[in-house]
């Protein structure tokens, strides 16, 4: 895009303008996607509970999210008098911003990526590890019991699952031989016979299953939504929040879920590549494949939310530390050993 703007202006200005345009091109459709995905989530959830779901605002209730957005926008922002005001207001902004900036390295098509950096996957890990701060700061700044419990739970939960996610990603990186997300997608081209995607590899398929489950824990989605377990903690860290500050959490949470779905698609299911390496399928643009995959994984997330009961906290910790961590470590050894024998010929 820089070269397009360079027709009219010097390189620096063109670069700056291209970057801003790229950010807007990703962030604005993402916000729209988040609004629609909240609607889709409620519809899927309702269908599985044999309800109708939102069906009043707009055709088939399509405008429900926008009506909700307008509602919270018009409400009064209440800041508790005992809270730490500056941190209380910064916390939702952190959650929301962090949920958006990780999208900078997601490739939407061959080369269509805002920041094509060679440590792309590490960047995603770094940004997703920042996400917990929004929750912790909110819990502490609210100066209230239940948000504080929720913040404690969130920090322990996210650190636990980041460990196994790290090992899972190491397996992917070893197989792809790079941290660049675009190159990781390319490495999945006809990975197994004519199938595009690491997930068809028997050594990496279990890693994908673990990544999907860890992703649910990392984004604090059901069945791991202990940070906002309404039967124990009212609404968790969001208890004291109202109006737009609450909406920012809402949007940030769903943007994070979409990011996890995009990572699932990019790292294991071939990103913008069609699932089968067959020439006519390449006529469909890559971004369509990516969006289809993202929606498929979001459907899985919704499906799980609608059907699986919430984990108890000790079960969550057990799953993270006693099941996923040893298993992912074992697979790091297996994958590196297999690559040593086959690719590097020891």
């Amino acid at each position, binding site marked *: 895009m820089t070269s397009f703007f360079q027709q009219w202006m010097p390189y*620096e200005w063109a670069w*700056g303008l291209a970057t801003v345009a790229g950010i807007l091109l990703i962030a604005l459709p993402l916000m729209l996607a988040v609004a629609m995905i909240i609607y889709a989530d409620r519809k899927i959830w309702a269908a599985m509970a044999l309800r109708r779901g939102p069906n009043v605002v707009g055709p088939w209730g399509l405008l429900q999210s926008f009506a909700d957005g307008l509602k919270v926008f018009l409400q009064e922002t209440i800041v508790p008098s005992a809270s730490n005001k500056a*941190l209380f207001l910064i916390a939702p902004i952190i959650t929301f911003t962090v949920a958006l900036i990780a999208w900078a390295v997601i490739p939407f098509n061959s080369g269509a990526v805002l920041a094509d*950096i*060679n*440590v792309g996957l*590490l*960047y995603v*890990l*770094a940004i997703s*590890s*920042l996400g*917990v*701060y929004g929750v*912790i*700061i909110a819990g*502490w700044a609210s100066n209230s019991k239940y948000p*504080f419990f929720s*913040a*404690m739970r969130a*920090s*322990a939960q*996210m*650190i636990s699952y*980041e460990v196994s996610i790290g090992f899972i990603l190491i397996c992917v990186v070893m197989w792809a031989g790079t*941290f660049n997300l675009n190159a990781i997608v390319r490495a999945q081209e006809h990975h197994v016979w004519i199938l595009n995607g690491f997930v068809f590899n028997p050594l990496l398929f279990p890693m994908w299953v673990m990544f999907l489950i860890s992703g649910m824990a990392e984004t604090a989605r059901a069945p791991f939504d202990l940070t906002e377990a309404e039967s124990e903690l009212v609404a968790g860290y969001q208890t004291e929040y109202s109006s737009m500050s609450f909406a920012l959490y809402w949007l940030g949470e769903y943007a994070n879920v979409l990011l996890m779905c995009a990572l699932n698609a990019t790292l294991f299911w071939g990103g913008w590549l069609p699932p089968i390496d067959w020439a006519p399928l390449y006529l469909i643009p890559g971004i369509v494949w990516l969006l289809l995959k993202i929606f498929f994984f979001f459907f899985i997330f919704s499906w799980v939310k609608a059907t699986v009961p919430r984990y108890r906290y*000790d*079960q969550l910790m*057990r799953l993270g530390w006693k099941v996923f961590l040893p298993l992912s470590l074992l697979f790091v050894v297996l994958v590196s050993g297999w690559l040593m024998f086959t690719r590097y010929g020891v």
Partner: protein
Amino acid sequence: MIQVFAFYLFAALTCIAGAVTILARNPVHSVLWLIVAFFNAAGLMVLAGAEFIAMLLVIVYVGAVAVLFLFVVMMLDIDFAELRAGFIRNFPLGLLLAVVLLVELGVGIGAWSVGGIKLGTPDGTAAVPQGASNIEAIGLLLYSKYLFLFEAAGVLLLVAMVGAIVLTHRKRTGVRGQNVSRQVARRPGEATVNVKPEIGQGVSL
């Protein structure tokens, strides 16, 4: 142009955040400012072309170490009067520590500027490995020349981890833990009994 601007922005924010870390009255604010300092230091690393180190700084320090810091500090019952009471008593120790750090810094810079340490070149330009990305360059050094030191560091960390667990782990009695494999292995036959009691006799379990 934008590099210079970014450098001064990150550098100034790092210094300010570092200063506020020790000046802030509330320990939680201190930790949060420390996180800001870490983050801006990572920005400086990116500008220096060390993006791998920058990402590791954010992942390890901001994403894990500082979260645990915050975890502990948030749970402290803070008594400000008591915090300040120890200041005079600990002042000589603090001064000594500051002097030691300053001398170390001076020695380090001195040794580097005369070429004693092979980190880049004395005129300040970093030694850029030719034809290898950041990660490859570090990997090539770490797993060949410094393999023994790297493994030794790993073993040291493992020992420290095991030691910490052994020291703090205590076996509590009377805890009703969940044994998942036992629960899963349970069959209806062993969990339920079907009895037909005589009227007025009741059932003994």
